[in-house]
């Protein structure tokens, strides 16, 4: 696979299929691991149902309460910036939407390239800031594991290779694009086996939290 075009075709072909298969299988296992264990029956007379409060918390937990914002402004602001930046680049970049359309038969309008470009640059800077924070903040230093840096690394690589490919900073172009696709595939493969799982399981966790507090009459 010395030819960059062969490499690109490999990333778009067999590598892509393997990555999606591992991702899908891994994620299915992770979600099953949660639901198969389930919960014991709760005999305490509830003050409210679980579904409404659970769904409420799924939405509201995205916004930090005022006190947390004051005490952890970096976490809240930079966290928001890079998550939204990542989502914009992923879901509103026109070439990504073409891929989505080719896979699912439908897509939605994207944003002009220069805007996505700017957002991507901001996201890269924000991601570097989160790494510095993780390496220097006492709490993050204490609780960080190898996995945190692995996940940071692959997330950063996905965005960085996309940025480099768009600006033709790696040549030839098929190599640049192939590297971007490959890093996205590694991201997909790692997702079910690392904290990246939160992309899917945080919804479940928030629901359980909202349901548990909700049945006791507290909007969590």
């Amino acid at each position, binding site marked *: 696979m010395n030819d960059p075009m062969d490499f690109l075709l490999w990333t778009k072909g067999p590598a892509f299929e393997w990555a999606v298969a591992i991702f899908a299988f*891994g994620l299915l*296992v*992770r979600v099953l*691991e*949660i*639901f198969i*264990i*389930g*919960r*014991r*029956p*709760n*005999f*305490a*007379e509830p*003050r409210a149902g679980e579904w409404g409060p659970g769904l409420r*918390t*799924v939405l509201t*937990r*995205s916004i*930090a*309460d005022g*006190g*947390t914002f004051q*005490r*952890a402004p970096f*976490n809240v602001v930079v*966290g928001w910036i890079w998550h939204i930046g990542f989502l914009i680049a992923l879901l509103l970049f026109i070439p990504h939407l073409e891929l989505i359309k080719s896979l699912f038969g439908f897509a939605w309008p994207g944003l002009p390239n220069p805007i996505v470009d700017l957002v991507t640059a901001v996201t890269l800077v924000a991601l570097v800031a989160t790494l510095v924070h993780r390496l220097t*903040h*006492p*709490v*993050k*230093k*204490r*609780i*960080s*594991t190898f996995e*945190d840096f692995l996940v940071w690394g692959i997330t950063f690589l996905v965005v960085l290779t996309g940025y480099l490919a768009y600006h033709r900073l790696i040549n030839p172009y098929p190599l640049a694009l192939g590297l971007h696709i490959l890093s996205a595939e590694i991201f997909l493969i790692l997702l*079910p*086996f690392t*904290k990246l*799982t*939160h992309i899917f*399981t*945080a919804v*479940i*966790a*928030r*629901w*359980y*939290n*909202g349901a*548990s*507090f909700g049945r*006791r*009459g*507290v*909007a*969590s």
Partner: protein
Amino acid sequence: MSELTLERGLAALRAEVDGPVAAFFSSCVHCGICATACPFYVETGDPKYTPILKVEPLRRVWSSEFTLWGRLMSTLGLTKKVTDEMLAEWEELVYDSCSMCGRCSLVCPVGNDIQAMVRKTREGMVASGHAPEGLIAASVRAVQTGSPMGLQWKTLQVQIEHVQSSTGLEVPVDKQGVDYLAMLSSMEVINFPEYLEAITKIFHRAGVTWTLSTECFEATNAGIQIGNKDVAALLVQRIVDAAVKLGVKTVISPECGHAFTAIRWEGPNLIGKPYPFEVVHIIELLDQLRASGRLKTEGKESDRLSMHDPCNLARKSGVIDQQRNLVNLVAENFVDLKEHGKFQWCCGAGGGVSSNERADAIKMAAFKRKKAQIEEVSPERMVTMCATCRTQLEEGLEEFNMDIPVVGLTEMIADHLVEK
């Protein structure tokens, strides 16, 4: 009691893993925001007090035994195991520096109910022999004497006689067929006997039929604080038996936070079935009496009052508006602390911390968060509705030379009853 071993501890942790635990650990991104919600971290700045770190023993068991990937890694010997040395180190984190106040559970961005997992982790700590002496002693006393402080009925009987002579009212004992069974906490009986007098007067004026039980007067549950379901279930069952025997419709949890969590929310699950009666906190009942016009007061306190919400009552049980309705009934100059209700800050003494003498220094360190909150609004007095919180507030304010008396809400209401 059979021997406490690491194996038993691991089995207890295993038994605590459920769907929510799996969802929570699957979702943690190590952001550390939980630390900013913990008074023990905020006031010491020591990152070992980060809440999610406190449940690491439970996480290790979940990861290595309840996930496909973890099992694979475990088979290859690549996972970190829970050892006796680890649990010995974690004892301070799980007990001394956690009041299970639940504030972390309310701020975690991915929704992890960390407090609930600390509660679960304690089951493993007890079973492996890593619980603090103070809590073990309280649990043994609770099982053997009915009270975590070793208080006996005869002591309460003396108080009952005092109340009867000072009020001229009967304190009903073992009365069949009344509506309510009132429970007490030993801390209240010893430190705040005015509570019993207050409810005697209030119930008399409001026409509430009630009784105490000689078979069980203790509402608190040392089994829940230490983290032992067998002890906890035994203590709850005593209340259930007393209530059923007297045929009451409702059991009243006293001015105590964790007792309410224990009876109201954990109790039915500990005994494995719903109760044949309701459970209300005294503050809920007083607010019901207020709303129905049965609680009539006159006059108002004129000094500047503020309020400490017990975590177990507000954040963990949804009793938030009731105490404000009541305080506004009898106070004209009430101001809330800035973060109150579900976002209030713990006094630092709950969750068994106050029964664990070894934790005295860090308990007082955590109190500094509450102190800072109180300083922000400069009240002349503080009102609360939990004997443990009240004791901690009194001791803490004295420690920092702040001349702010602390009063129980129920007794304040009783002071304003309309004379018949």
